[in-house]
């Protein structure tokens, strides 16, 4: 850095002022990053696209045989895979709607002045900054059927949250809500604070009721930012792996990412898991596309 700076100094004389042209600098600054991302993200995906048409197994020594679209055909007609997608959809709905309600509710509570507001807001944001794997781990302690504090606090006796096939997905979703409701809260707070005060004053003069004010003023103005939170959380919940993988081994909690992990790294069914990865990838890219569109829309305002 210093050596670069001194080198620059020697170039500072007006005669040699040109140095690198703007075009050169632009390319020097942008191309390495794009190349890096192509090499380490796009190239692997092309590589796995190739394998998705084979019966390759990374644990066997046998060469890969081309099988055409068989992997895709088998996956799309496999009821178990559809069950995994159904579990994922259920998880996304429970978890994301919980986050939206709790997060927006918290934001409505916080959207006023009171002492130590900054500190309280930051404390509430702590969960979303933590590692999902570690959060999942210590929630297991809280959920323990015999001595966990959740059963004790709620008086549930020895209800087995995580080994009960019907409750496990809800238990994981509750942990996810605890972790990510703060995210929705953060975005909602920004949306709420951007609602002009005079609109509320005008509503008060017109003797509008609290519910009417909320429905006609607050909600429409916060909606775009809530939508961003909704799309982003949906995408992330769809990809969920860590928290569900750590917390439960129930088949009822096997979301699609866990299915993919098992197929690729436990059964070593590499060719087929590459095909499944592509099915998942297309879904994620579709949501990403919607997300970026809305992000740009809100940015323009």
């Amino acid at each position: 850095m210093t050596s670069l700076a001194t080198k620059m100094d020697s170039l500072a004389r007006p005669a040699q002022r040109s140095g690198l042209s703007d075009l050169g600098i632009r390319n020097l600054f942008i191309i390495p990053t794009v190349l890096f991302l192509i090499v380490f993200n796009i190239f692997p995906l092309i590589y796995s696209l190739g394998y998705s048409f084979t019966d390759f197994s990374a644990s066997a020594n046998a060469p890969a045989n081309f099988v055409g679209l068989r992997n895709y055909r088998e996956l799309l007609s496999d009821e178990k895979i559809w069950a995994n997608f159904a579990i994922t959809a259920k998880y996304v709905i429970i978890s994301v709607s919980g986050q939206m309600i709790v997060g927006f509710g918290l934001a409505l509570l916080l959207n006023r002045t009171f002492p130590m507001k900054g500190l309280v807001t930051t404390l509430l944001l702590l969960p979303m900054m933590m590692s999902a794997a570690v959060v999942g781990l210590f929630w297991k302690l809280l959920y323990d059927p015999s001595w966990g504090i959740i059963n004790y606090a709620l008086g549930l006796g020895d209800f087995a949250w995580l080994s009960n096939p019907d409750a496990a997905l809800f238990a994981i979703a509750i942990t996810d809500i605890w972790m990510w409701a703060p995210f929705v809260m953060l975005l909602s707070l920004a949306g709420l604070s951007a609602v002009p005060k005079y609109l509320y004053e005008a509503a008060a003069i017109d003797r509008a009721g609290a519910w009417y004010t909320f429905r006609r003023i607050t909600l429409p103005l916060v909606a775009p930012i809530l939508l961003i939170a909704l799309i982003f959380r949906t995408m992330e919940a769809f990809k969920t792996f860590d928290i569900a993988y750590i917390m439960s081994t129930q088949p009822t909690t096997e979301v699609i990412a866990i299915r993919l992990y098992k197929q690729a790294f436990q059964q070593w069914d590499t060719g087929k898991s590459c095909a499944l990865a592509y099915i998942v990838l297309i879904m994620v890219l579709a949501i990403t596309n919607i997300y970026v569109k809305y992000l740009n829309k809100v940015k323009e305002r």
Partner: protein
Amino acid sequence: MAAVKSSGRAAVNRLAVVGVIIATLIFLAPIYWIASTAFKPRALATTVPPTVLFQPEITSFIKLFVKRVQMNKPVDPEAYAAAPWWEQRIMDNGERVLRAGNSVQVSGYPSRFMNSLIIAITSTVLAVGMGTFTAYGFSRFRVKGEADLLFFILSTRMLPPIVVAIPMFLMYRAVGLTDTHIGLIILYIAFNLSFSVWLMKGFMDEIPKEYEEAALVDGYTRMQAFFKIVLPEAATGIAATAVFCFITAWNEYAFALIMTNRRAQTAPPFIPSQLGSGLPDWTVIAAGTTLFLLPVAIFTFALRGHLLRGVTFGAIRK
């Protein structure tokens, strides 16, 4: 009438603040519980009803750092008296510190913690460095197909880790990069680079172009203007971006689980693996978790002004 309304509003306000207090307590309870479990004696960690008041001790942290085994016979009183105080604490729980020759055997935790630090810091420096240059390029120069390129860059971040991990695992195995620091560092750079470009572009867009233009008129080259004028202006943004990238790399689980198993393993896959089978010592797991969460908690406070920006990839400021 007006007085009634404003007193009504004050009541609503008071009620809301009570709600905030309750919500904060509920949200912090899990964190408090894991942190307090780290300071409990083992016998009190899993009691019914849960133990709230206890004499805090640091035995679990000692256990976290040393290798130990269950004793199969009662401890010899002489050996107990001769042992240092911290070994006595471990013996009290029916365990013995493992020694090789004369030196105490260190557990797997410190090396995993160090791996996490090395990998998170190195990948952060490189991702933020490259991201800053690229963000400047996008912010100041006309780039053909800029929107598409930026979408491409962001979309790489949205890829599910497992999807990328399958081919990366095969490629890493072919070139011998599995279970290496470099292997994980590359993956984390790739993961954080797009975020760093997007966030830094927001910060760069806020620095007035006129600053550099004035410098260019004064005879600076574009490079000099970038290093001497733009970078110092962007320092806060660079710091915030770096903290975000650090936290992401620090917390990452899926890649670390798949790509490492020992030498380069980071803390997130290691800590849950301590659960193992049989009766886990929750105080030790709690101690490991608390130490691991501490840097993130500190950084969250340091970042509090930038959190909104960070989670929206720089799109929404305040």
